[in-house]
């Protein structure tokens, strides 16, 4: 090696002298395999399909809060008249677990669409039916608000989270059934 060689050239020379492959001692492989085996078992859950699903959820989550809070903000007005709108900005929900916020967004979109359909059909339903539906929706909304408020104070409470989800699902189911009622019933 020359005295005038630059540090980069010197490094190149040294690395060039290194062997291309270094085989590990034979008795190391069993231990390495033992370490790797469980990890490869776990990675099977992250096949492309799961990654796509996770990506989809992430995309859905990014805009869910807007819809959710838009719906929440106008629900009181719907007791007398249903007007669909999605231009409200998020104002709450930060204290809920992330997965619930994602779920809430899905619920909010469903509720929004069903409300619009129900509003379009409102005149074709009997007033007594509309009254029954609205009374039940108020009960459902009250339960949702109560469970949600409690969950914001105790975000780690899984029982509360399950109850909140169930309340949403019952409300959506009620709305769905109301939209499927025959005219004049």
């Amino acid at each position, binding site marked *: 090696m020359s005295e005038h060689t630059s540090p980069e050239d010197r490094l190149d020379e040294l690395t060039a002298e290194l062997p291309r492959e270094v085989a590990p001692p034979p008795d190391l492989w069993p231990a390495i395999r033992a370490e790797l085996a469980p990890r490869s078992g776990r990675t099977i859950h992250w096949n492309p399909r799961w990654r796509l699903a996770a990506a989809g959820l992430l995309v859905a989550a990014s805009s869910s809060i807007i819809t959710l809070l838009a719906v929440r903000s106008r629900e009181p007005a719907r007791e007398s008249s249903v007007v669909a709108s999605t231009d409200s900005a998020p104002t709450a929900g930060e204290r809920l677990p992330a997965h619930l916020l994602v779920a809430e967004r899905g619920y909010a979109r469903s509720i929004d669409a069903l409300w619009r359909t129900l509003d379009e059909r409102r005149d074709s339903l009997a007033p007594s039916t509309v009254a*029954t539906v609205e009374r*039940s929706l108020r*009960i459902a909304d009250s339960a949702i608000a109560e469970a949600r408020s409690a969950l914001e104070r105790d975000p780690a409470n899984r*029982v509360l989270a399950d109850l909140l989800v*169930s309340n949403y699902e019952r409300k959506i189911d009620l709305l769905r*059934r109301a939209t499927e009622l025959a005219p004049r*019933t």
Partner: protein
Amino acid sequence: MTRARVQRIVVVLIAVVTSATSLHAQQKVHTAYATTPDVSVRLFASVGTVQVVGWDKDSVVVSGIVASGSQVSLGTPGAGPTRGLKLFVESPTEQAVREGSLTVRVPRGARVWLKTGSSDVTASEVTGGLDLNVVGGSITVHGSPRELRAESMDGAVTIDGTPSWMRVKTATGDIALRGGEDIGASTISGTIDARGGEVERVKLESTTGAIRFALGLTRGASVEMETHSGPIDVQLSRKMPPEVDAATVTATIENAWSKIPPVPGREGRGMSLAIGGGQMGGRVVLRSFKGKITLRGM
């Protein structure tokens, strides 16, 4: 008074009497079809009561009385047995929807889809499938169809058989059932009363309505009950005790079924109760926000 004038008055009187009579008049309905044993029947009926009766004939017979002026579309019986029927009866006015009654006889193995407004619906002896949907009327099912879906807004739903698969939903209507294999019942403010039979898998849920459960459990049964604010009253066997997992957010749990006491929840709010059971006794999960949970022996 001239003769022409008298004739005019008579004509007017006849017209008035006829129209007044027609307000309360009813028209008869009767039609029959040869069908396959598993015929699918879709019926929209806007009448006071509807009875669906399963029988041992491969035919569907629709008979009864409907309000005069009703739109009736019962199709035309074909030459051979049909696999599907669509029948339609709509009352002429909103006031007339509670008038009249229909009886629909179907093969026992038929699948019947029935949608009505405020009719009281009774179905019996059907072993195929029933999909019944009412708003203000009640639904009563006798016998054990293979599949049963019953939905009502504010009418009561009573199932006194043990269907293999059943889903019942109401908004304010009460639900009464006797068990089955795979059962689901959900209501907003109605009550759910499950007693008198056995169950393999069941989920009962309400928002404010009370839930009462006194069904026997098959081996390895799965039972879930959930409410926001309705009380849950559960009777369980002590001979074949299931595993119990109960929790409330703010309400109390009273355990009169075993000697294990519930424990207060975090920060002293709510309660939980965990009891290990025999492996064959199944599992019971109870969840409530603020409705009291009571466990008792049966």
